């Protein structure tokens, strides 16, 4: 939504600026491959229609409100000499889990039970990352970890339907029967090779 308004703001203003400059200077060069010829501005839902028609390979990432989180940076551990000693690259993100209304209630409770080792006495979930050399990337990794936690807590346990369960049992039994049949055949072959002189 914000993107569309921004786009709507950008395009007319750029066109206006371009046309005024063209009128003034007379030389805003436009070749056959300029952007407005490659992607002619269509009215309304031209852009929306395109993205809707093609398959969304991955669902949109969870929107994490940054002002609800507390982000702090400190120095990372490990080798690295002067750089690791002086530069604050470890990013730590904490937020109060029970009052995080950007996560659904059921998911919140699931998360509280799954990651109770990461929740402190005040009820804040703490996620930290010191994998990268850059603060920004460590922050992105923290946010990614939070998203993964929420996704894991959201997934429902796989319910096996009755028919499928019966099919699975039937399959196992059939396998065992076949195995025993083959075993008997093999046993007969070996028996027939025995020379029993009575």
């Amino acid at each position, binding site marked *: 939504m*914000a*993107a569309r308004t*921004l*786009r709507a*703001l*950008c*395009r007319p*203003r*750029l066109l206006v*600026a371009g046309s005024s400059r063209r009128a003034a200077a007379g*030389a805003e*060069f*436009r*070749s*056959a*491959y*300029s*952007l407005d010829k*490659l*992607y002619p501005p269509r009215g309304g839902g031209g*852009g929306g229609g395109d993205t809707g028609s093609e398959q969304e390979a991955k669902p949109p*990432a969870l*929107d*994490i409100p*940054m002002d609800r989180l507390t*982000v702090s940076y400190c120095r990372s551990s490990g080798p690295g000499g002067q750089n690791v000693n002086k*530069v604050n*690259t470890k990013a730590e993100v904490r937020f109060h889990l029970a009052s995080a209304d950007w996560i659904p209630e059921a998911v919140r409770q699931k998360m509280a039970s799954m990651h109770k080792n990461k929740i402190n006495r005040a009820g804040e979930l703490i996620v930290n990352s010191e994998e990268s050399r*850059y*603060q*920004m*990337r460590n*922050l*992105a990794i923290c*946010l*990614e970890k939070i998203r993964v936690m929420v996704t894991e807590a959201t997934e429902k346990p796989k319910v096996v339907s009755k028919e499928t369960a019966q099919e699975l049992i039937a399959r196992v039994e059939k396998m065992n029967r076949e195995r025993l049949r083959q075993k008997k055949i093999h046993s007969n072959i070996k028996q027939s090779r025995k020379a029993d002189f009575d």
Partner: protein
Amino acid sequence: MGGPGGSRALELLRSLPRVSLANLRPSPGSKKKEKRRGRGRYGGRKCGRGHKGERQRGNRPRLGFEGGQTPFYLAIPKYGFNEGHSLRRQYQPLSLQKLQYLIDLGRVDPTQPIDLTQLTNARGVTVQPLKRDYGIQLVEEGADIFSAKVNIEVQRASELAIATIEKNGGVITTSFYDPRSLEILIKPVVFFLRGQPIPKRMLPPEDLVRYYTDASNRGYLADPSKVEEARLELAKKYGYSLPDITKDELFKMLSTRKDPRQIFFGLAPGWIVNMADKKILKPTDERLLKYYSS
């Protein structure tokens, strides 16, 4: 030292004797005496050749010979590490730290769009098109201290570098320059003195089209609406709020972009720049105009 109006030096010149071979001398320490063998206790006797054997007699075997053992350079099997190295595209790295350094020192002006020409004039990067360099790539070193709002155009950029520039309210575009256009871009004056019309920039080759039409790389041939979406996505991923550049006072400068066929800002292909008379000659024939705007 000069005195008022440089008169002291002039007085000196008048009073000193004429410069001739008799009163010239090299500055002390500039000319070091060469080591001459066969003279005196230290340069002479064995003359630095050692005692007997192949060493003294100058009969040592070739470089790499290991006395008959299979030498290292033959024992190791061949593998195509460097195969086709002269056909690989190279991009000179430009770290965000260096860019910040140049802006802080005033060598690069952030109030104008930053281009490879600006960076080369500021001696921030040195690009050699003859060594298969196809431009510069923006590298993340210094991402945490970068704080400049710029409109920058590079040839490749990593995701974190793009995020850093956009976080500070700037605009980044990746564009392609074929070797001829690149050579013209880094040395514009030398090109103008040739008196040839500015050529049109070629489109990227097949394997690079995908890169430059991708909005996540901010390619110059990508759909602007998709670029907007990619900006928002990146802001979500890296956890910063995307500053609204439309509300910026430098919005007009930040949104200037070159046409895909244009090499210089403000100069179109087909124009001849006359440096001596400070004039620009533009073609008027319709066939030429049609060719240069195709």
